């Protein structure tokens, strides 16, 4: 799992995830998201376009990032999740908390 954080301005960042977002990397992903929030990027857009697989532990990492972002007065959004990721979001009903956006631009533009 590769994690790349690309800042967009001073308070937002696009976090690109590449690979499997599963149990084995969940902790690392969460730590990286929390670190990004602590560095000042309170709006995080997770680019899911290159995530091949998500399990519930992986989703848990995203919840961890969301909590950190909200505590800082910001938000965490998902951009371009694949079919499997969307299915997992529905299965866990997490799509009511983490609304998936069709692409990064729209995710960034939605109001805080």
């Amino acid at each position, binding site marked *: 799992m590769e994690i790349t954080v690309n800042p967009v301005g001073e308070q937002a960042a696009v976090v690109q995830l590449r690979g499997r977002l599963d*149990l084995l990397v969940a902790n690392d992903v969460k730590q990286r998201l929390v670190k990004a929030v602590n560095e000042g990027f309170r709006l995080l857009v997770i680019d899911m376009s290159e995530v091949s697989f998500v399990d*519930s532990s992986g989703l848990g990492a995203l*919840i961890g990032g969301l909590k950190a972002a*909200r505590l800082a007065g910001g938000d965490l959004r998902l951009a371009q999740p694949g079919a499997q990721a969307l299915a997992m979001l529905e299965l866990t009903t997490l799509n*009511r908390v983490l*609304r998936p956006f069709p692409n990064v631009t729209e995710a960034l533009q939605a109001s805080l």
Partner: protein
Amino acid sequence: MNPSFTLTALERVVGWGTDEWAAFRRGLIKILVVTNLVLGAYYLLWRGTASLNWDAWLFSLALFGAELYSYISSFLFGLTVFRLRERGEPPPAPPGLRVDVYITCYNEPVELVRKTVRAALAIHYPHQTYLLDDGNSPAMRAMAAEEGCGYITRSAAWIGFDRHAKAGNLINALEHTTGDYILILDADQVPLPQILDRTLGYFSDPKVALVQTPQYFINVPPGDPFGSQAPLFYGPIQQGKDGWNAAFFCGSNAVLRREALARTGIRFFVRDVERRIRRALREADTVIRRAERQLAPSERTQIAPALQALRRAVKLARQELDRGDTFQEVTERFQRRAEDAARMVVAANLRQIMADLAEIQAVEAAEIMQSLHDEAVLAELARRDRSPLAAIETVRQLIPLLVNEAMDYLPISTISVTEDMSTSMRLHACGWRSVYHDEILAHGLAPEDLRSALQQRLRWAQGTIQVFLRENPLFLPGLSIGQRLAYLDTMWSYFSGLPTIIYLIAPVLFLIFGLLPVNALSAEFFWRLTPYLLVNQLLFAVISWGRPTWRGQQYSLALFPIWIKAVVTAAANVWFGKKLGFIVTPKTRQAGRYFGLVRWQLLMMVLLAVSIGVGLLQLALGWRTDGMPVLVNVFWAVYDLVMLSVVIDAALYQPAEESSSEYA
């Protein structure tokens, strides 16, 4: 666990093997269950219509109520065992699974836990072993290092938050490990090396989330004075539940699928957030209605439209939640609508202020108007405690999407001290399957003193009732009918305190005071009651064939004070937030220490003995002539005495010297 000698004897007579006998027994059980229910209904119908003694109506209705309770117990028990499932040999364990073994401990002796750790490390199937030390003890840490076992304690994330006892311990460990399957063991449950080989095969079915095996105690003295073994539960009852896909997790000796726990945890996290929002909307409704009632006539034209707008905002929010919008959208739109409503009030008040200021020169008024900010006006008006505006401010603040927990989501349920049963119910509600595998694969240690044994029973009872009150299986979405009734069966049994007292008091009331709860103990009464009782006992005998269940039966009845305390304390905890409390050892002399723990039972036994004496004496002296009813009630009282007598054994029991010094 079956007495093989009986089977082989029968085999020689009839020529059937074990499989045929098992099938015969299951069929016999089904017949007896239905017969029992029919006979019971026949008896109770007559009881309720023809036999109530209205001269002693309270007593009469109370006893009838107790009998109804027992009938429902019978129904639930019969339903549970109706689909008794004996699984036999497990599927073979596929190689290459990533498995963790958790040993949970808190304040057990280090040497006791060392035994468990060694046995866990020796389990055949490749796995990681972790000791989950909630007591954070350096001695335990050192022992784990010596034995070569992983060691986990609570991370700093828990500081300042509710630790949730054992549930929290497990959740904490899940954060720090990566096994797809987790075997959970209590500190005293020493596993056999083949435990994973015998259980992992069930997970080849991708819907299986849990495999539960029996808890069996090897330090139980002959006669089992504390009723520690539970051969009925880890046997026909769990097997029955298994038939309904309702076998539940018992906290130890079980393997769980991580993905199932995580997925269920997330679903209940989302459910929890939605419930908070709906609760906030209900509170908003209450606040708005109160404000509407308190409107002064002069305010009506100005404020009422704003309050109506707020009501509409709440209604719309509910509709949006129902149709599945994200929580973020729902709360944002609600806050915007609430702000609009607030602005309506400000606007109305500004007009009023303008009118008031009309006396002042128009220019000055305009200047003042320009310098007034919406927020400032609102704050000023709210500060003057005008209730409709205060209401609007309250409504504007919805609970944010943050849940006040240490962990992001909770893969183990924290709503009850019996986190195990609650977690299984949630897993079932999310469509997962459970398996009960009836093979002893670990050896545990039962409590060795009466106080600990009672405390354990109290906790199970309290936890079960907490689940009943917080996530009632009859209403939790996603469970099948069979599952709902199977969970209800376990919970229902803990409400037996009051019916038991009625059953115990009834013969006393008759023998000493002559109060009869029925019109007459006529032949009709016996013709209806006796077959019902007989079939009841026969059913029980067939179900518990080969398993020693007498102790369990005695304890269900004899622990009535514990069941009552459990219901009262659990309800106080769920409804009023009171702490659950403990069994308190009464501060009496050493010799009387254990008897203090069973004082209510002893009191009841004295009452029963006295009533037997009084009844028989009166009969012998000719002071009463109703011989048959007296004998029936004497028999009833003797039965009660025999059942309660188990507490005498328990109170007198002292553990043998060598067993208590084994871990010194």
